[in-house]
C-alpha cells in the first residue's frame, strides 16, 4: 500500500489501551464464569481460579430435586429454555417473513402514500416499546391470550416487525433494479424473482434482521413480566429472576450458570454477523 507508512509495531499507548479493553470487558465475564464453575460449598468464598472446577451448577439447573432442597430457585430450567426458544423462534420467523414482504414494497414499488407508509413503520421502529406495556396487557387479556406464549409472541412482534421491515428496506434498496427487470422479462413471477434473486443478494440483510428479531425477543423482560404469570410459561429472564429472594441471592453458582447459559445463543449469533450490526441498525444512515 502506498500509504504514508504508519508504525506497525505496537506503541505503549496502544498496548495500555488493549490491556484496559481486555480487563474492562473480561473481568465481569471471568467472575461470573468462575462462579458458575465453583462448587456450591465454596460459592461464598470463591477463589480467583476455581480449585475444583465443576459443571454441576449447570446440570443442577435441570434437576428439580436440587431446587426443592433449597427452594431458592426455579424448579427446572428446561421449561424456560424451551419457552424462550419457542417464542423467539416464532417471532423471528413471522417478523422476517412479513417484514421482508413489506420491505420489498417500500424499497421497490411506487405509489401514492408510500412516504406515509414508510414513516408509519419508522415511527413504530423508533418508538420505545415500554409504552405498550399497559395496552398490550389489556389487549392480551381481552383476546384470552393473557398468560400464553402466543400472547407474548404477539407482543414481541409489535416491535420486531417494524424493526426487521426497516432493516430489510435498506438492504433491498441496494439490489440493482436491472437484475430484477431482466428476471421479470425472462418470465419469472414476482415471487420467484424475490425468492431466487432478491433474497439471495440481500442474504446479509436477511441474516441480520433474523438475528436482531431473535435477540430482541430473547432479551425481553418487561412483556414477559406483564403477560406471563404461570410458572410453566416462564421465559428465561423470569426464571432467573427467581434466584433473587427479597434482594438476596443464595445460589450464586447456579445463578451464574443460568446467566451464562442465557447469554450463549445471542452472543454466538452476534459474533456471526458483527460486520453488519451497525449498518443494519442505522439503515444506511451512517455513511461517514
Amino acid at each position, binding site marked *: 500500500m502506498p500509504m*504514508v507508512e*504508519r508504525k*506497525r509495531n*505496537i506503541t505503549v499507548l*496502544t498496548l495500555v*489501551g*488493549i490491556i484496559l*479493553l*481486555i480487563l474492562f470487558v473480561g*473481568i*465481569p*465475564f471471568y*467472575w*461470573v464464569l468462575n462462579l458458575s464453575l465453583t462448587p456450591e460449598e465454596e460459592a*461464598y468464598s470463591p477463589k480467583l481460579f476455581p480449585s475444583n472446577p465443576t459443571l454441576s451448577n449447570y446440570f443442577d439447573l435441570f434437576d428439580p430435586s436440587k431446587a426443592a432442597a433449597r427452594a431458592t430457585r426455579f424448579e427446572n430450567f428446561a421449561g424456560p429454555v424451551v419457552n424462550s426458544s419457542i417464542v423467539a423462534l416464532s417471532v423471528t420467523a413471522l417478523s422476517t417473513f*412479513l*417484514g421482508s*414482504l*413489506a420491505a*420489498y414494497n417500500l424499497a421497490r*414499488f411506487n*405509489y401514492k402514500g408510500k412516504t406515509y*407508509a414508510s414513516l*408509519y413503520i419508522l415511527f413504530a421502529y*423508533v*418508538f420505545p416499546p*415500554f*409504552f*405498550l*406495556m*399497559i*395496552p398490550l*396487557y*389489556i*389487549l392480551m387479556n381481552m383476546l384470552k391470550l393473557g398468560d400464553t406464549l402466543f400472547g407474548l409472541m404477539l*407482543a414481541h412482534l*409489535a*416491535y420486531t416487525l417494524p424493526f426487521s*421491515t426497516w432493516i430489510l428496506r*435498506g438492504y433491498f434498496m441496494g439490489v440493482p433494479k436491472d437484475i430484477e427487470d431482466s428476471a421479470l422479462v425472462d418470465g419469472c413471477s*414476482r415471487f420467484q424473482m424475490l425468492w431466487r434473486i432478491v433474497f439471495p443478494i440481500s442474504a446479509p440483510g436477511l441474516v441480520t434482521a433474523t438475528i436482531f428479531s431473535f435477540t430482541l425477543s*430473547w432479551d425481553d*423482560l418487561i412483556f414477559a413480566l406483564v403477560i406471563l404469570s404461570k410458572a410453566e410459561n416462564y421465559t428465561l429472564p423470569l426464571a432467573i*429472576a427467581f*434466584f433473587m429472594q427479597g434482594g438476596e*441471592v443464595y445460589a450464586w453458582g447456579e*445463578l*451464574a450458570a443460568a*446467566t*451464562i447459559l442465557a*447469554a450463549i445463543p445471542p452472543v454466538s449469533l*452476534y459474533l456471526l454477523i*458483527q460486520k453488519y*450490526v*451497525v449498518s443494519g441498525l*442505522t439503515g*444506511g*444512515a*451512517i455513511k*461517514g
Partner: protein
Amino acid sequence: MKLNKIADWLYILPALAVITFIFILPLCYTFWISFQEKVLGGSPKFIGLTNYYNILASGAFYTIIGNTLVYSFSAVFFKALIGLAIALLLNRKFPGRGILRAYSIIPWATPAFAVAFFFILLYDLKGLFNRILGFLGLPALRYLGPDLAMFSVIFVNVWRGWPFFFLGFLSGLQAIPQEIYESAEIDGASRFKKFVYITLPNLKTVFFTVCLLSLMWTMGDFTTIYLLTKGGPLDKTLTAPIASYLKAFATGANIPEAAALLILLLPIYVILIYLVMKYAYGRA
C-alpha cells in the same frame, strides 16, 4: 394495471395491519384509559383529568423526569466516550486487531437481563468489587445503596452499551479517505491537529445518529434498573419505564393512573422520536 397496484399493496398490508393492531391502536388506547377511574370489574368510569392531576401533584413525577434524564444522558455520554476511544484504538494497525473487534462486541450481544445478573454478583457485599476493595484494605461499599445506586446502574448500562458506539465510530473512521490524512501530513500537520480537523468533523454525522438512537433506547431501558434496584432505594433510580410499570402492576396496581403517567412523559420521547426520524433517518 389496476389489479397490479392492488397486488403491490398485498406485500405491505399484513405488516401494516399487525403494526396497527398491536402497536398504534394500543398506543391510542393508553390515551383513552388515562381518563378512566381504576375499576375492579364493571364498566369504566370517565373521570376527566383526575389521574393527570394526581400525578402532577405528587412530587415523584419530577423525580422521575430528573432520574430519567440523568440516567440516559450520563450513560450516553460515557458510552460515546469509551466507544470513541476503543474505535480509535482498534482502527490502528496491529496483530490481533480483528479478534479484539469481535471481543469488543460481546457485552452488547449479551442480553441486558444477563448483564444485570452479572453485576448483581459483582456488586454484592461479598462480590468481586468489594473483595478487591478488601484486598486493598478499603471498606466495602454498598453499590446499590442510596448514595451509589444511580452511579451503579449507569455503569451497568455503559458497560453493556458502549460497543454500539464503538461499531458506529469504527465504520465512520473507516469511511474517511486516507488521502486527506496523507495531504495533511505533507502539509506538516501534527497528530493532534489531524484528529481535531479531520477525524472529528468527519465523525459528526455518525456521532449524532448513534447518540440519538442510543439516547432513545437508554430512556426506554427497563431491564437493567428493574433487576438491580427496582427503582429504589428511596426512588433514587426511579426512571420513566420503571415508574410506569410499578404504578400499573405493583404498588396499588392503578392502570389508568399509570397510563396518565405515560402520556405525561410522552412529550419528552416525542421530541426525541422527531429528532431521530429527522436527523438519523432524514435522508432515507
